[in-house]
């Protein structure tokens, strides 16, 4: 690149020597600032004579940059694209709006329907899912990023603060108290926690349904589970006592201390709960539900074949025109299936390369 360092030396005197003229501001009484000399200090900085590097963006200097960007971006893009394409993803919409769907009967389910409406959807995987499979649930048209919703939580309460447990933040209104007892966890987010239960079975032959082990740990951020979310201080083995004096969120069937049987996944540190509490950026989103770990190196995590998904349909979405999905996906180093990044890299790389060529022509012709 054509750049040069030049220590500027200005031989020509600037119109100095005026510094002696005091009292520039004229008739200000006492001549404010009259005493101090206006002549700048004779430092390199004040005189703006620091050594400087003066690059210019010319076709000549930018050309190589364009080619380099092109040459780097295109392979990266291809790499990402290929990786993304190798990812297996399978998605089932189980909302049940379609009358033929097995879940159609549950469409107008309400919160407190007991026993839960259950439905089963069978599906076939044509290709095996070789590596670990991640099971997501997806919601559409669900505005988890609505402002009223986003702020309707009390982080101190969730962090185990006992005073917040009993006096939740005002932000939680109208999900702050119920029957004069503070709600734990308070707020709209907690109140609307996703409560469908999804179970996966492999169908071998006619009747044999083998349940697939779904790992419910490791779905939340480590820091969330271990630092940000904490059960109230006290004897963690007796959560019931800890949450004494609070009540369950209105829509929940069970209180927070009965979310899970395992004590390290119960209360505020229940991972499903933590996952739900991380509000999604967009109205169509997915959240990690379970992990299907590969048992050994020889077998794929999910082999090709028939499967059935059993759903305890509790979560009403029809009232706001929402959709529910279950997604099975493998993951690469760059996450799930997303062709955008690869295509974008390839496009930008090609554009840069093309522009480089155009600039080269212009540079030589003009």
């Amino acid at each position: 690149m054509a750049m040069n360092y030049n220590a500027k030396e200005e031989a020509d005197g600037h119109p100095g020597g005026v510094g002696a003229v005091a009292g520039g501001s004229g008739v200000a009484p006492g001549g404010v600032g009259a005493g101090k000399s206006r002549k700048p200090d004779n430092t390199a900085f004040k005189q703006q004579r620091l050594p400087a590097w003066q690059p210019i963006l010319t076709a000549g200097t930018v050309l190589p940059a364009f080619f380099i960007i092109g040459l780097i971006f295109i392979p990266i893009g291809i790499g990402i694209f290929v990786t993304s394409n190798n990812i297996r993803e399978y998605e089932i919409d189980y909302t049940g709006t379609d009358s033929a769907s097995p879940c159609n009967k549950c469409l107008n389910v309400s919160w407190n329907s007991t026993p839960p409406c259950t439905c089963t959807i069978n599906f076939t995987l044509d290709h095996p899912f070789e590596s670990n499979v991640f099971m997501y649930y997806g919601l559409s048209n669900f505005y988890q990023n609505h402002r009223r919703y986003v702020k309707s939580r009390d982080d101190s309460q969730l962090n185990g603060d006992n005073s917040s447990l009993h006096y939740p933040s005002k932000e939680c209104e109208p999900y702050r108290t119920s029957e004069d007892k503070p709600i734990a966890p308070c707020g709209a987010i907690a109140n609307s926690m996703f409560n469908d239960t999804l179970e996966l079975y492999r169908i071998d032959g006619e009747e044999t349904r083998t349940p697939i082990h779904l790992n419910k740990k490791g779905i939340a951020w480590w820091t969330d589970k271990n630092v940000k979310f904490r059960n109230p201080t006290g004897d963690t083995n007796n959560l019931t006592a800890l949450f004494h004096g609070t009540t369950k969120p209105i829509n929940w069937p069970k209180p927070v201390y009965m979310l899970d049987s395992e004590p390290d996944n119960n209360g505020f540190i229940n991972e499903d709960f933590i996952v739900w509490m991380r509000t999604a950026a967009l109205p169509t989103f997915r959240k990690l539900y379970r992990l299907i770990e590969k048992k050994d190196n020889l077998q794929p995590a999910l082999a090709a074949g028939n499967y059935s998904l059993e759903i305890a349909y509790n979560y009403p979405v029809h009232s706001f025109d929402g959709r529910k999905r279950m997604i099975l996906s493998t993951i690469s180093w760059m996450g799930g299936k997303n062709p955008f990044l690869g295509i974008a890299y390839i496009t930008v790389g090609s554009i840069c390369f093309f522009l480089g060529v155009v600039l080269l022509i212009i540079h030589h012709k003009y």
Partner: protein
Amino acid sequence: CNCWLISCICAGEENWVDSRTIYVGHREPPPGAEAYIPQRYPDNRIVSSKVGYCPHPHLFHQVAQLCSLIIDTPTSPITSGLPLFFVITVTAIKQGYEDWLRHKADNAMNRCPVHFIQHGKLVRKQSRKLRVGDIVMVKEDETFPCDLIFLSSSRTDGTCFVTTASLDGESSQKTHHAVQDTKAFHNEQDIDTLHATIECEQPQPDLYKFVGRINVYHDRNEPVVRPLGSENLLLRGATLKNTEKIFGVAIYTGMETKMALNYQAKSQKRSAVEKSMNVYLIVYLCILISKALINTALKYVWQSELFSDQPWYNQKTESERKRNVFITAFTDFLAFMVLFNYIIPVSMYVTVEMQKFLEIGEGPLVNTSYLNEELGQVEYVFTDKTGTLTENNMEFIECCIEGHVYIPHVICNGQILHDCAGIDMIDSSPGGSGKEREELFFRALCLCHTVQVKEDDNLDGLKKAHPSGRSCLYISSSPDEVALVEGIQRLGYTYLRLKDNFMEILNRENVIERGFLFDFLQTNIFKSHFNILYFTFLGEIFLFCKGADSSIFPRVAEGKIDQIRARVERNAVEGLRTLCVAYKKFTSKEYSSVQKHLQDARLALQDREKKLAEVYEQVERELILLGATAVEDRLQEKAADTIESLQKAGIKVWVLTGDKMETAAATCYACKLFRRNTQILELTTKKIEEQSLHDVLFDLSKTVLRHSGSLTRDTFSGYVEISDSDPGSNWTSEQWNVVYLGVCRVALADRPIVKLIKLSKEHPITLAIGDGANDVSMILEAHVGIGIIGKEGRQAARNSDYAIPKFKHLKKMLLVHGHFYYVRISELVQYFFYKNVCFIFPQFLYQFFCGFSQQTLYDTAYLTLYNISFTSLPILLYSLMEQHVSADILKRDPSLYRDVAKNALLRWHVFIYWTFLGVFDAVVFFFGAYFLFDNTTVTSNGQMFGNWTFGTLVFTVLVFTVTLKLALDTRYWTWINHFVIWGSLLFYILFSLLWGGIIWPFLNYQKMYYVFMQMLSSGPAWLGIILLITVSLLPDVLKKVLCRQLWPTETERTQTKHQCLSVEQSTIFMLSQTSSSLSF
């Protein structure tokens, strides 16, 4: 401030009287005197600290602020409040500090003790307790506490010496005269018996004008009336010198003193950049309001279905549900306003303020730092000739008496010989009557002036050794006169002094002649000094008159007019300044009638000047012409070079002069304003009489049209004479535009022409430069006023926006500093708008995906700190340091100035380009992140990111893009730039790590906890950030490169050329080093 004006008007209504009457020492006049209108005067307190604090023009933000307190805001009050708070604090601190300094100075002033006379005794009081009418005693080296009428002095002749250095900067001592009838009162008791009233005009800011009269009552007689002029007035702020003590009566006190009035009267000038800035601001305000309106409307459309408004998972509270629809709509609108208010770059004002504050003033004395960038926009330069273009270092060249030319033998080996023998008589020796005339001429020149003699040899400055060994120094406000007196001294006549109205001169025979000075008139019409003097000489009364040819010739009745006129014209062509001298004899009878008229006119309180002028007109008739003088005023060093450069820079230079066309033209040729091929357009009264003005101009425009292809800019120049009869008001801007360089003989003040051009259709930016008091009006009128600290006092410098010592400094000031300042400030303005669009537009887009619920995309801390710390320093540094072309090149190649002319960098298309770039970048950030996050996971462990990670990603890309964009625009990278640019990016990262790294105990939300770290742990986020930054910067880089390659501006060409050159040079330098090391 307005408050002051209003109070002024109110006060005015209360007691609006043309004049004020003051009882000296508070003694009532004898009954029977005129009815007295009681008036209230302010006390002698000076308050220069501003009364009220006028906040920033951002009322809007305060409204937004207020809203955020009332309504439920999307951002916490701290978030939106902090930047504003910061703005107000910074300005308040700056103003408060300046105010505090002023207040302190005021207090010191108001408390300082003053000596009063009370009941014949001397009393010490604080200055602020002084009242109008009090008699005050001032000792040597003390400052006058208020405006005083000079009653008596310890000097027997009733004079005192005063320096007004702190008022107008003139360090020379001025003589003031006590009132004739009171100068005998020398001590406290005497002065207490004085019984007098003073009538004078209401206070006005002109330092050099004062009209009043004093009535002195002696027992029961009719009062003696005496005129009072500015020579009797001692101004606050001036200092008493060389006089033991004086007595005076206070007439103007406190804020009514001329000094205080002057301080207030100075108006603020605003620069074109500031104006554009405000226009853009209004545009952005409209964008903001329309954005808020659109979003509010869409919100209600979207909410029309109940399941969108209140889905079961997100219910409203009871009180929210009950609220009136219109009220909620309005609060929603306000909430959107608060959310988007960052698009208005409040911090820009702070940055501009800080930039002005920190701007490195190089050399020129800056009075108004708000106009720095205006220096890069000048289209018209109005320059005074004498003292500005020329040295104002006059040298007496020759004189012509009765047609005979005398040249004092001047230069010999560069030294001036004071030799009276060295007179070259060009013509043959004059005869007897000629001899008499010759002596009269010399005497006239010797007497007819306002020169003062300083017998103080330890004064520095010009020192003149008197032939007889006595050291004396001539001082005058006009160097012309000094030159003449010195010239005459070389011809044998020496002016010695003025004592008790007797003037003493030393004639050729070394005999001291004394004459009584009856009266002394000085008029300053037509910018040519016109002094008249009555003098008895050998029992006769003479009127000597010295002035410009144009004012003398019409009044002359006798003398060798033709010969002298020819000589005057010849000298004028050579560029010499000519003056004519005439005289007139009076009989004592004639003189006494003149005396009476004069006295009448002088006592008038109203129209005094007009009446005086009438009397002068009567007296100065039928003069006898004696001769003429020629004085040379050399051009200032590099004046020609400067004018040439300005001309190349596309600036139209107008020289405003009072000289004849020939003199002016000669100077203009000398300073390259006119050239050989210049077609001079003459617009003189004479020419216009022959041909109507319209025709002349019509011809001119025809010529211009004919030459339109081949017209070079210096083909046309004009000499325009504007006299009283033709104010030039019917000139249009096109006609002015034709004349690229002009010389203008201005009969009135300079102001009309400057105003005329300033207000012409294109509103060009004007610059006026001058050195004398007569240029002040022009300096104040023009957009930028520059004063030259010259020999004609400091008034011009005091009233100017910038003061420079020499005309040649104008070149660097405009071409280098003006250019730099303009480039810097315009980039600053555009960049601020750009970066705020980038900042807020994603926020706007996000509303479409969050149900128009005013959800913020970024975290509170980011919202607050974006403008305060993440992106503020690089642009501030840029606005202080940037040198897109080196200063040397700018100076060498004036045509580069054209690239920034006419506000080029702040024109609409540039502004729109920046705004669109901002919108484009914002779209890239937002949708880039959108597609990256859309319904998929971006981590390798399958976990999902939430909305805060989304916002953080957008924000990270935003901060990087915006900073790198500035980095791409920076042409001048010093280590400080590197430090600040990379430093602020690093700061952003460190801040984010810290902000997300801890559960902050004092916050009630932990939404950012580990968000940034989690984002960095994801590969696609990195790739996405890199991609988005590249895409956002790409169009701008491409545009720059293509424009530079295909349609380069002059500046860009120079940059490229210079770069190649310096590379070559360094190679050559290296080669030569190598060879030299080889040879040794």
